[in-house]
């Protein structure tokens, strides 16, 4: 991506998120940021740092502490000409706004036959990783893929974050933009200064391989790559690793052609297995690639339990050993 023509910078993922917001705030006066502590404080993770100073309190708005209120008001703003970006401080605090998302943000277009639309981006950090108190580390993507009318995206690096957020901010419908906490500052990627898009609905093949397709997203991407590379050293297995990036709608073509090539699949995610997005992937493979499958699809997930207190986080997270065991199970089947 960093040819001589395109100016780039090495950014952390949270900087990528911030860059996308700054660029879009500049370009489009209708864009607003709303949330708790997003103003003067620049967000509890500093995602909005400097934006309050640059764009003023009419565009970067510290709201009262009320998630239903924030999303409900943003629906009114969105219907009436604005494009709000809502920051929910942690995904585990989105639940009070569930009704506003489930019965309004996602349904107004249909209910009004297109008269009222809700171009709204809800950003939320999520997942294990900052040794935060309970409930701060929930991974509940699956609640939102089961919510018709919204799209769900998850970048895993700065480049994808910026491009996906820009696409989300031009999408005519509500987008849930999930930001895996462990990715915020874990690495830097070359990111073009200019505007570019990562299409919603397109996954990214991070590594090609022949024996198994491993699907993952968010913070598990790096863990998975590492586990896979380790395994490839010790065993003669060639793995394809795909960062899904969009969880709804899934990238049907890439997923199915990969599995049709390798004949095996594993899915790695933090959330509990039951009701998790892995099941959507399994169903897609079942629908499209049944005859190609040479082994059961493997899931490597969190437990069917709440995300535990932080001293047990590492036990909860899918480990390299678990990822490797799953791949071996499939290949040795």
């Amino acid at each position, binding site marked *: 991506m960093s040819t001589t023509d395109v100016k780039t910078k090495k950014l952390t993922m949270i900087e990528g998120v911030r860059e996308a917001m700054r660029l879009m705030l500049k370009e489009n006066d209708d864009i607003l940021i709303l949330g708790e502590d997003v103003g003067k404080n620049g967000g509890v993770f500093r995602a909005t740092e400097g934006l309050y100073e640059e764009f003023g309190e009419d565009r970067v708005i510290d709201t009262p502490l009320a998630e239903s209120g924030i999303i*409900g008001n943003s629906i009114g703003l969105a219907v*009436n000409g604005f494009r709000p970006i809502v920051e929910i401080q942690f995904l585990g605090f989105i639940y009070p706004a569930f009704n506003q998302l489930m019965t309004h943000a996602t349904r107004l*277009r*249909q209910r009004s*036959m297109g008269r009222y639309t809700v171009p709204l981006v809800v950003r939320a950090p999520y997942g294990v990783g900052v040794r935060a108190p309970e409930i701060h580390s929930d991974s509940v993507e699956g609640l939102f893929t089961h919510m018709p009318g919204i799209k769900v995206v998850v970048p895993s690096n700065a480049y994808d974050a910026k491009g996906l957020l820009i696409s989300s901010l031009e*999408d005519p419908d509500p987008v849930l933009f999930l930001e895996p906490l462990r990715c915020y500052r874990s690495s830097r990627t070359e990111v073009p200064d200019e505007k570019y898009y990562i299409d919603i609905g397109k996954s990214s093949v991070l590594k090609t391989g022949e024996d198994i397709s491993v699907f993952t997203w968010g913070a598990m991407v790096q863990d998975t790559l590492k586990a896979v590379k380790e395994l490839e050293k010790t065993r003669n297995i060639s793995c394809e690793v795909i960062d899904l990036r969009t969880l709804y709608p899934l990238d*049907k073509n890439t997923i199915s052609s990969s599995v049709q090539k390798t004949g095996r699949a594993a899915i790695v995610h933090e959330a509990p297995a039951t009701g998790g997005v892995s099941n959507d992937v399994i169903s897609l493979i079942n629908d499209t690639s049944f005859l190609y499958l040479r082994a059961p699809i493997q899931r490597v997930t969190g437990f069917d339990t709440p995300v535990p207190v932080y001293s047990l986080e590492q036990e909860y997270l899918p480990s390299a050993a678990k990822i490797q065991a799953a791949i071996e199970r499939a290949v040795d089947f």
Partner: protein
Amino acid sequence: MLDQFPIQQVIHQDGHITDEKYKEKISIDKTKDLYYKMLRARLLDKKCVNLQRQGRIGTYVPYEGQEAAQIGSACALDEGDWMFPTYRDHAATLTFGFSMRNLLLNWRGRYEGNVPPEGIHIFPPGIPIASQLLHATGAAWAEKKHGTDRVSLVYFGDGATSEGDFHEALNFGSVFDTPTIFFNQNNGYAISVPMEKQMKSKTIAQKGLGYNIPSVRIDGNDVFAVYFATQEAVERARAGNGPTLIEAVTWRYGAHTTADDASMYRDQKESEIRRQTTDPLLRIERFLKAQSAWEEAWINELESSIMSEIETALEEMESYPDHEFAHLFDHVYDQPTWTIQDQVNEHLAIKRRQTQ
């Protein structure tokens, strides 16, 4: 609190003006216009209850008894303002410009029933109680940001004040000074639950105190009390002075919906008494009679023109093309996702097979 928030009245149920100061503000023409609107709403409501009984529409939500509250407030708005109704506020939406045909289509389970004429800002009726209050503050806030003087008015019931969204909306409206009129129709019941079980406070108006929002309690069956109070709130909002909470004390004569049986939880005699005493239409009739401005010819003409308007709308509704299957998926997203498209293709293929 009852002292702090007395029920304000302009026209007494006997038909006399309660305070001379209102005299010059009430013209016979305006009175007749409001009466016409209330009569139109009432006749439509009665028709709808009958249509439901005949199975020509689905479950219906009547508002009979609440015409003054809805119409007095709707008349205080201008075109371009925003209205956020509930499932019971079609007297208000009708008055604010919603088409009678689409209103009827709503009760046939049609999306068209949520769509106002172009340029008329009416939201689809709020179904999850109190959630629409936040859209009203949001939309009004947007107007403020656009630099216009447009306002939003949102309807909600006594029961709705118990939901968290009521509270969050009043707080947002207060903090961001949104030009919003929080218009409460206190009809004394949330389905079967009387106000005394819903809250300990004797008024809803007092709930504004926690947010520094000016509040007023009015006789919701007195169309002028409603109209003037709403006008004042609208002016305050247009002038940039933020929201107002209005409690309009009223009563629904009938059941919660046509699927509800009010006699299960209250004595329906109360409604019969109220029809003779505090009724919003009867009150204006008495007022006009007291002014010697009540003419049988006028009222007969009104009735027959309204009935023929209703009949026309009904015909339009009943001859309206069947709901298209496409409406199931067309507007879920701007463009259907592939999962939806695949499901639709399969659906159509199976239908084709069946009809072959």
